[in-house]
């Protein structure tokens, strides 16, 4: 049986389909030259991967990390409400308000900020959550949870929210909830890219930058909702 060079390499890499693999295996066992060639292929692979492996352990240059930390982020979500004692959220000033909504989670999502037009409005579940839910009373398993509410410098009500695969900040105007920041899940395979969350802190910092004064408390939220989140009515 003839084994091509391509097949021999593919055999060494375990890339042949099962049937062919068995055939080549038999041919290799019967031919010392082929056996040597397979050993050489495997040794080459081992040598190359050993050669480049140390790069993985080198610290990543700061400029590369910074690039990502400014523009993309990682946010982790709570799948189930957990006790505050396990909260990992650690944004300094507003943590106590956002904490319950951001309680430590097992599911971590890599969220990438989306370009949003200046006239993008929340719709569907997000809009419904922003209109109706209060931080203090919303169900723990709501598909979209409001993390906190505040007023921006113009006086408009703004709310930060998070869901299973998205998060952001939206502010109420005459047309609805205009999206200021919007992140979407870009994790292809969650298991492979689990990361500690820093994005929630980033979202909170953005909220703090936008806000005038502190986050609304439960009573202020209730009042704002009763007025349809309109600033002067």
């Amino acid at each position, binding site marked *: 049986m003839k084994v091509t060079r391509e097949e021999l390499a593919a055999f060494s890499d375990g890339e042949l389909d099962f049937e062919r693999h068995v055939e080549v295996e038999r041919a290799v066992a019967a031919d010392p030259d082929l056996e040597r060639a397979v050993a050489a*292929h495997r040794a080459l692979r081992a040598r190359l991967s050993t*050669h480049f492996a140390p790069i993985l352990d080198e610290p990543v240059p700061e400029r590369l990390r910074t690039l990502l930390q400014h523009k993309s982020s990682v946010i982790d979500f709570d799948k189930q409400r957990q006790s505050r004692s396990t909260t990992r959220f650690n944004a300094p000033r507003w943590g106590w308000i956002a904490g319950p909504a951001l309680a430590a989670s097992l599911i971590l999502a890599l969220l990438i*900020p989306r370009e949003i037009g200046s006239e993008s409005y929340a719709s569907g579940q997000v809009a419904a959550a922003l209109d109706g839910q209060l931080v203090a009373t919303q169900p723990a398993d709501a598909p979209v949870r409001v993390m906190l509410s505040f007023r921006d410098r113009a006086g408009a009500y703004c709310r930060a929210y998070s869901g299973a695969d998205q998060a952001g900040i939206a502010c109420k105007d005459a047309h609805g909830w205009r999206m200021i920041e919007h992140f979407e899940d*870009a994790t*292809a395979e969650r298991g492979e890219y689990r990361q500690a969350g820093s994005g929630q802190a980033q979202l909170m910092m953005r909220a703090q930058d936008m806000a005038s004064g502190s986050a609304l408390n439960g009573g202020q939220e209730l009042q704002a909702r009763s007025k349809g989140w309109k600033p002067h009515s």
Partner: protein
Amino acid sequence: MLALLPRLRRFAIGLSRNPVDGDDLCQMTIERALSRRESYEPGTRLDSWMYRIMRNLWIDERRASRRRSQTFVSEEAGAFIGAAGAQDAAAELGDVDRAMASLPDDQRVAVLLVMVEGYTYREAAEIVGCPVGTLNSRLVRGRDALLARLGETV
């Protein structure tokens, strides 16, 4: 994306043959990925998408630098100068680096993706944007050249 950085650096340094150019390539890749993130299809592999961007940037850069050298000298002389430059640089490198540097670009990409990054032929072919058979034959030619340079008993 942060978790991918060490692997992206490894691929970049493998392509560029030195850490300085590798990190530049890495930076360009991240910037390109962030500016084109809408072209990423959710549910597909983020790592493959980033590798594809990096591979394309590197190929473009290689073509551009060849064109630049051809603007000033004849093609033949350009190739000669390129080879001489590569040899100087290669003198600083170890055996594996020297052998890798001798490979044509397409073969180098195939070897790195499969033998260093650990992608299957199919995944590597998708990153490169070529048929699996093409990837396989580039890989074999690259491997044979490496074995010849490094000795059969590596």
